[in-house]
């Protein structure tokens, strides 16, 4: 799986958990919280959906890795490909 595919998976999850947000133009290098109305509960939702939909486990210590689409891709792609 490529980093772009992983980014799309994360964007699809964000579209589910933040249905009022426009997810068509998320800037990958900018923190998600700085460009969308996402709170800590929403990030827990992202973690839960990665677990439910893709069997990917993100330990609490690694939550900062989910800050932007770029960091998500860098952190999650090896897990998807493991």
């Amino acid at each position: 799986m490529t980093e772009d595919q992983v980014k799309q998976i994360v964007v699809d999850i964000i579209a589910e958990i933040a249905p009022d947000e426009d997810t068509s133009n998320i800037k990958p290098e900018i923190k998600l919280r700085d460009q969308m109305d996402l709170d800590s509960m929403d990030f827990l939702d992202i973690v839960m959906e990665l677990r439910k939909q893709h069997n990917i486990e993100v330990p609490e210590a690694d939550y900062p890795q989910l800050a932007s689409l770029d960091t998500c891709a860098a952190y999650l792609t090896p897990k998807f490909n493991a």
Partner: protein
Amino acid sequence: MHKSRIVITGVGLTSPNGNTLEEYRKNLLAGVAGVQIIDMRYMGKVPAGVCDFDPKKYQTRKELRVGTRAGSIAVYSAHEAINDSGLDFENFDKSRIGVYVGTTEHGNVETENEVYNISKFDYDIRFWTHHHNPRTVANNPAGEITINMGITGPHYTIGAACAAGNAGLIQALQMLRLGEVDVALAGGVSESIRSFGIFAGFKSQGALGTHETDPNKTSRPFDKTRNGIVVSEGGAIYVLERLEDAQARGANIVAEIVGYRINSDAGDYVLPDPVRQSECMRAALKVAGMEPGDVDIVNTHATSTPMGDIQECKAIREVFADCPTTYVNNTKSFIGHAMGAAGALELAGNLPSFQDNIIHPTINVEDLDPECALPNLVINEPLKVDAVKVILNNSFGMLGINSALIVRKFED
């Protein structure tokens, strides 16, 4: 102690047969019920009262995803009440608004959903949602109102079984009199149709209503063939104010709350006690400074269970003997039992009687049970009278909680 007069200046509601007071009232006068068959997890098909208001009218999609159905019903009803009140909400001090919402129960729905959810993951609790606790805390429906509307005054729910709608209004009245708040949003809500446990519990108790052919005939208080409750969702939230504040802003005053009482049977867990019920009604009348004959409408709690209806009729017969102009009706025959919302919703359905002098009937009585044959029971057809000035609203609940609320047509 000087007691301020407390008035209703706005009503917002959603009921299985109407999403505004106007629509609801129209259906109560036209004999239009609102019960349908739903598919309930583990139960199969059951009759239920379902509301069809547009939740997106006042909530974002995210709020709907994160919150509860009870919260959504509460938010919708609260906005509608504020709109109806004409209050300048935008500029009103939000720290002086209190939110007091009656609930029969809260949290069952959300916990059942999570248990079901993790059952799909071999009961691995890693799949239990972090939304569970904020959804299930008892203050959830009232809290969702404050979050959605930016209200920073006090909020909580009043857990009072099926007397909760009245209890919410009584709590608000008391807080206004204490000067704790200047405006109260109060009433009751129910999301009970989303809990299989509520249906299953009534079924195990032999108190879940059925009808062979027509869901709208399932809830049939006082009929000889009645066999139990129809569980419903819904909500009614009122704007309450002290009379002087309402008059100062030129508000339209819908009614005045003049009497109330909550008491306890201190007896059985489920079977109501007519002696305590009549004591409750008499105590409310005493607070109002009224005699039984001053009441024009007694809106019954009767839920269409064989014993409960008889017990309430005994209580009413005792209090309202020799009251030729006191009429008795029932709203659950249209909408089923909206649990925590019942008292508030049923009162709302009768408030327009102050204007139109019509008493909505209790419907679905094909064969009146002689034990429920009260002298002035308004059956199947609305009744026009000379004047309606006083309504007594009964709401009772499990563990022997009784409530009676008396409202009067406003006269300065």
